[in-house]
C-alpha cells in the first residue's frame, strides 16, 4: 500500500510539471473537440497527431495522446445530449435518454450528471490501474514467450468477438494486419519478405503511414460521401447542477456503471464501447419502472456515461502492464512508445517508472481538467458544431500531410499514405472495420517474435504451446471464445447488445 502511494507521488510530481500539464490540457481540449464533432473519432485524431508527438518528450507525448482518448468520451456525450448526435460510438446510448432530458428542458442536468459520473468513473479507474499494475506486472514477468504468444492469440480472439460487426470480417482484418506486419526485412535471417522488390518496403511499413492512410484519411474519404448531418433544434441548456433528487437517483447507477465499464474496458477488443451498452441494459433491468427509459430517465445517462469513461481508462491496463494493446487506440499508443524507444511490456513500470506513473497521475488530473473545461464552456463546444465539414477536412489534410512528412522528412511517405487511404476506403466500402487491422499489425511483430523464440527454446516443437499449462489454457480460452461467437444463441445475444 505504501508503495502505491509513493508511486502515485512520483506520478504526480511528473504529471504536475508545467510542460506536462500543458500537454495534458491540450490533449483534453483536442479530445473534447473531436468528441463534439461527429465524424472525427479519437482513433483518427490520435493517428493524425502521432507524427507531431515525435518531437516531444515521451512522457508528455503519451500524456497528451491519452488525454485525447478519454477527453473524447466527455465531448461525445455533449452532442449526444444536446443535439441527438453521438459524437462518438461510445455515446450512442446516451442519446436515448440524454436527448429526451434535453427536450424536457433538463439538458443542463443531463450534462452535469454525465460530467460528474465521468469524473467519478475516471477517479476510480485511475485507482484501479494503479492498484492492479504491480500484481499484473509480477504475473507478466513469469510469462515466457510461449505464454506471451498464447496471450496475444487470446487477446485477438476477444478483440474479434467483442468488436462490432461481422466476425469473419473482423478476423480477416486482423489477418491482413498480421500479414502487413510481416512485410520488410526478416529480423532473424535478414531476408526480404513480401517487399516485391520495392526499396520503400525493405524496412517494413511504417506504423504512422499505415495508420494515417487506412484509418485517418480513409475516414475523411468516407465522410465526404455522407451528406452532412445538421443539428437542427438546439434545446436551451437550463441549469447545470443536478438537484439532490437527481444525485440520489444517479448515485447507484454511476457506481454500477463505473464497475461494469472498468471490468469490460480491461477485456481486449472494445475499450470504452461495450461498457455503456451493458450499463444501460443493467439499469433498465434493475429499474422499478423500465418504461421510463427512453423517455428521459436520468439513470440512463448516469450509468452509461460513467461506464464509457471508466472503460476508456481501464483499457490502458493491458497495455501498461503486459505491453499488449487491447484495442486500436492502444495499438496507437504502442506506436507512440516504440517511436520513442520504449518497448511496451512489464518492464516499463520499473524501467520507465516516471512514464508509467506519470501517465496514470495525468489521467486523474486530466479528468479534473475535463470537468472544468466541459461544464462552463459547454456553449462554446456546441457552437463548434457550426463549423462545416467542407472546411474541416481540407484543414485536416494539410495538417496530416505535414505530420506524416515530418516523421522521416520523406515525401514518398506521403504518397504511400495516399495509397493506403484508397485501400482503407475500399475496405470500408466492402463493409470491413479497419480498426482491427491496426491491432493485428501492431501485435503481428510481437506475436511472430514470441512464437519463434518459443519454438527455438522448445527445439522447434509446436507441442510446447500445449505442454505449458498457462499457454495451453489461454489457447483453449481463445478457441472457446471464437467457437462461442459462432453458436447461434450467443451470436443473437451479441447482436442484441449492439443494436439496442
Amino acid at each position, binding site marked *: 500500500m505504501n508503495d502505491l502511494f509513493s508511486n502515485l507521488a512520483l506520478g504526480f510530481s511528473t504529471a504536475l510539471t508545467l510542460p506536462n500539464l500543458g500537454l495534458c490540457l491540450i490533449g483534453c481540449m483536442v479530445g473534447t473537440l473531436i468528441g463534439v464533432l461527429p465524424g472525427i473519432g479519437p482513433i483518427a485524431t490520435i493517428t493524425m497527431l502521432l507524427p507531431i508527438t515525435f518531437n516531444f518528450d515521451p512522457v508528455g507525448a503519451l500524456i497528451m495522446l491519452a488525454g485525447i482518448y478519454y477527453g473524447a468520451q466527455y465531448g461525445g456525450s455533449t452532442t449526444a445530449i444536446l443535439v441527438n448526435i453521438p459524437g462518438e460510438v461510445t455515446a450512442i446510448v446516451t442519446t436515448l435518454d440524454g436527448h429526451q432530458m434535453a427536450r424536457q428542458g433538463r439538458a443542463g442536468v443531463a450534462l452535469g450528471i454525465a460530467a460528474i459520473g465521468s469524473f467519478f468513473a475516471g477517479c476510480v479507474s485511475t485507482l484501479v490501474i494503479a492498484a492492479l499494475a504491480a500484481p499484473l506486472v509480477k504475473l507478466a514477468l513469469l510469462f515466457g514467450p510461449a505464454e506471451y504468444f498464447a496471450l496475444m492469440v487470446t487477446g485477438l480472439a476477444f478483440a474479434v468477438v467483442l468488436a462490432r*460487426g461481422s466476425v469473419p470480417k473482423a478476423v480477416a482484418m486482423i489477418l491482413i494486419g498480421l500479414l502487413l506486419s510481416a512485410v520488410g526485412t526478416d529480423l532473424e535471417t535478414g*531476408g526480404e519478405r513480401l517487399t516485391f522488390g520495392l526499396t520503400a518496403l525493405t524496412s517494413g511499413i511504417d506504423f504512422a503511414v499505415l495508420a494515417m492512410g487506412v484509418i485517418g484519411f480513409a475516414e475523411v474519404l468516407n465522410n465526404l460521401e455522407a451528406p452532412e448531418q445538421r443539428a437542427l433544434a438546439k434545446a436551451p441548456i437550463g441549469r447545470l447542477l443536478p438537484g439532490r433528487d437527481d444525485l440520489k437517483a444517479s448515485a447507484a447507477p454511476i457506481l454500477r456503471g463505473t464497475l461494469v465499464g472498468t471490468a469490460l474496458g480491461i477485456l481486449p477488443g472494445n475499450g470504452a464501447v461495450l461498457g455503456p451498452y451493458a450499463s444501460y441494459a443493467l439499469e433498465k433491468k434493475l429499474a422499478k419502472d423500465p418504461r421510463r427509459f427512453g423517455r428521459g430517465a436520468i439513470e440512463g445517462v448516469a450509468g452509461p456515461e460513467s461506464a464509457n469513461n471508466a472503460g476508456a481508462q481501464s483499457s490502458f491496463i493491458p497495455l501498461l502492464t503486459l505491453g499488449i494493446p487491447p484495442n486500436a487506440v492502444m495499438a496507437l499508443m504502442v506506436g507512440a512508445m516504440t517511436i520513442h524507444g520504449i518497448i511496451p511490456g512489464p518492464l516499463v513500470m520499473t524501467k520507465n517508472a516516471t512514464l508509467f506513473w506519470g501517465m496514470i497521475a495525468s489521467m486523474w488530473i486530466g479528468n479534473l481538467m475535463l470537468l472544468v473545461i466541459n461544464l462552463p464552456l459547454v456553449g462554446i463546444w456546441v457552437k463548434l458544431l457550426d463549423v462545416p465539414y467542407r472546411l474541416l477536412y481540407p484543414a485536416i489534410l494539410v495538417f496530416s500531410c505535414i505530420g506524416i512528412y515530418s516523421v522521416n522528412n520523406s515525401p514518398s511517405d506521403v504518397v504511400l499514405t495516399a495509397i493506403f487511404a484508397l485501400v482503407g476506403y475500399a475496405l*470500408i466500402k466492402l463493409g470491413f472495420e479497419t480498426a482491427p487491422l491496426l491491432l493485428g499489425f501492431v501485435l503481428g511483430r510481437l506475436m511472430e517474435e514470441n512464437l519463434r523464440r518459443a519454438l527455438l527454446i522448445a527445439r522447434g516443437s509446436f507441442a510446447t504451446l500445449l505442454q505449458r499449462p498457462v499457454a495451453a489454457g489461454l489457447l483453449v480460452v481463445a478457441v472457446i471464445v471464437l467457437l462461442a461467437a459462432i453458436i447461434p444463441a450467443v451470436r443473437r445475444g451479441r447482436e442484441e447488445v449492439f443494436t439496442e
Partner: protein
Amino acid sequence: MSEPANASGGVVERRRAIRSSQNFVAGLTLLAVAAIALFATADLGEGRFYAVGPALLPRAVATLLALAGAGLVAGGLMKEGDMLTRWSLRGPLFVFIALVAFALSIRTVGLAVAGPTVALISGAASPETRPRELLLFALLVTALSIGLFRFILHLPIPILIIPRLLVL
C-alpha cells in the same frame, strides 16, 4: 467512427443470384490478397526443427485469410446481407491528387505553396466547397501550421523555396 453504409441504392435487384454482393466481393478480395501473399513467399524457407523460417507466419496467415475469404464468398452467395453501395470517384480521386501534389511540392517549393495546394485541390472533392471561402481558409491554415511546425516545434520543414533566389 464510421458506420458501414447500409444497403440502399447502388447495385439494385439484378435477379439476386448473389445474396450479398458486398460480402461476395469482400471475399474475393481476401482470396486475391492471400494468393498474392502465398505467391510472394513461395521462395522463402519455412524452416525446420530448430528455427522457424521467415515464411512460416506469412504463409500461415495467408492460408487463414484464404479460408476467411472463401467463407465470405460462400456467405455472399447463400445468406442475405448488405449489397455493395455506390463507390464515389470524386472524393478519393481529388484527395489522392492533393496528397501527391503535397509530396511533390513540399521539397521543391515549400510549405507556403504546398499547404494551400493540398487544401484547394482537396476542396474539389466535396460538392459543398465554396472556392473563395476555401482560399481564405487555406491561407489561414497554412500560416497557422507554419507557425506551429516551424516555429513552435522547430521541424526542418522548408517554408518557401524559390530556386537560386530564396530558401526559407
